[in-house]
């Protein structure tokens, strides 16, 4: 998730798709043309749907990710993606210790909220030692503390029409601010928390200060950092390019990242 990859795929797909595979391209580019063909992309995306449907059917909605003891903590919790959001606004927040940071809870809610970090720390807290799995393959174990997202959503009165929760972030990657989303099963899961502490200390900037999502049954890129807005929506169509997340829209990472 640290790489920014140009959408070469889209260019090639538009340039001819499968037809290119039949052309005089060398074998390897032929294979890549197959990879890039729209029809093949459609078949490949079936895998994600099969994984999502089967995992949703198999995994109890409240089944917990394994929790560890302090003895199991990684000696150093590796940050990834943005390590320091650019811009004067974020720098000003850092200078004031995030005293003016606001998390707006909006969208399909009965009572829109604007929470300060003090509000968030005043809520009932959950502390959990869990394993963070990056899509790249590495894992790190850390202890996280913060309110359950379900409590925040309950306080805002999420409407029945809401099917997804979208997380807006303060870090700009390339052309856009980072964003992610999840369905209500994961949003209301007991281990889904908005964490402001890592390993018993205030969340470091590199790990998403002042507030980040923990969504323990999915891969790392789903765990939005630097969160300043939580939005309940009925559809992801109007979010970014419609696939529900920054990397999902740009390089076709799976929206369902349970595997």
């Amino acid at each position, binding site marked *: 998730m640290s*790489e920014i*990859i140009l959408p*070469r*795929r889209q260019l090639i797909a538009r340039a001819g798709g499968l037809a290119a595979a039949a052309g005089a391209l*060398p074998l*390897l*580019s032929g*294979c*890549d043309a197959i*990879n*890039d063909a729209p029809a093949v992309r459609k*078949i*490949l*995306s*079936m*895998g*994600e749907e*099969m*994984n999502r449907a089967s*995992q949703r059917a*198999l*995994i*109890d909605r409240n*089944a*917990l*990710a*394994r929790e*560890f003891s302090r003895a*199991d903590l*990684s*000696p*150093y919790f*590796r940050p990834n993606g943005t390590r320091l959001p650019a811009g004067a606004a974020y720098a000003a927040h850092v200078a004031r210790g995030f005293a003016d940071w606001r998390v707006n809870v909006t969208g399909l809610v009965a009572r829109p909220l604007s929470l300060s970090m003090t509000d968030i720390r005043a809520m009932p807290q959950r502390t959990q030692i869990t*394993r963070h*799995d*990056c*899509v*790249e*393959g*590495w*894992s*790190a*174990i850390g202890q996280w503390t913060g309110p359950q997202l379900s409590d925040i959503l309950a306080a805002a009165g999420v409407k029945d029409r809401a099917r997804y929760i979208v997380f807006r972030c303060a870090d700009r990657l390339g052309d856009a601010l980072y964003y992610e989303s999840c369905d209500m099963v994961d949003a209301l899961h007991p281990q889904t928390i908005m964490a402001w502490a890592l390993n018993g200390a205030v969340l470091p900037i590199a790990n998403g200060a002042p507030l980040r999502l923990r969504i*323990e*049954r*999915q*891969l790392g890129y789903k765990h939005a950092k630097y969160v300043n807005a939580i939005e309940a929506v009925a559809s992801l169509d109007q979010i970014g390019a419609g696939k529900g997340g920054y*990397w999902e829209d740009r*390089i*076709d*990472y*799976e929206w369902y990242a*349970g*595997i």
Partner: protein
Amino acid sequence: MAEAETPVAPEKPAPVRVYRHRLPARIWHWVNAVTLLILLMSGLMIFNAHPRLYWGEYGANFDRAWLVIGSTPDSGYLRVGDYRVDTTGVLGRWTDAEGAEKTWAFPGWATIPTSYSLADGRRWHLLFAWVLSIGLTLYMVWTLLSGHLRKDLHVRRAEWSPRHIWHDMKEHARLRFPRGQAAARYGILQKLSYIGVIFILLPLMIATGLTMSPGMNAAWPWLLDIFGGRQSARSIHFIAAWALVLFVLVHIAMVLLAGPVNELRSMVTGWFRLPPEREERA
């Protein structure tokens, strides 16, 4: 040998044909040939995203890796434990088709897709993992119901004798393969290889693959206990993948040595021509 009579060439007996591979076995064989190749190449792409392996539950860049494929400013290397070997040109630092130098672990010709894309590697891998899992499940049921397991793969008591196994190993080493009716049945080494792949290696690949899924860890946390943690499962997945590669290489070598046309035809049509018995010489 001094007789003056015209020598008569011994009449060549018509080859004996046996129906060796039934349709489900043939279909599964070729589906697997394609599936395993795609899984291997897309798996190498996924590995390229983090070319380090660990034991235990966690492992990232600052933790000790037991296997690393890396690069220095002018070379590529593979490190296993404390043993390091220069792999410039193949692993860690290599030149792509356009002549550009790259420092991904596995070279473009070995990965799906050719250029770095973790997202696409995962899409291929996680779709074809389904093809492998469903195919293996159906095949296992079929081997049980059809009697294939009992009749063809079951190791008889006599075959377990070290003498018998040693004899088969020597025959293989001398490239003396069974002929006549004996060629219609699997030898002990073949049986053990196929049983090992179908009932140990392939299920191990699927189980360690699932152990890397954070979703599956919540559903079946015992997977983590069996394999000693997610990073251990990832390491075992990698090792077992190369064990499968080794199996395929030996398998292909044996097909080439035993008669590729006859062997390939039998895996397409099912019909195998028994190699005639060796003529005994006094």
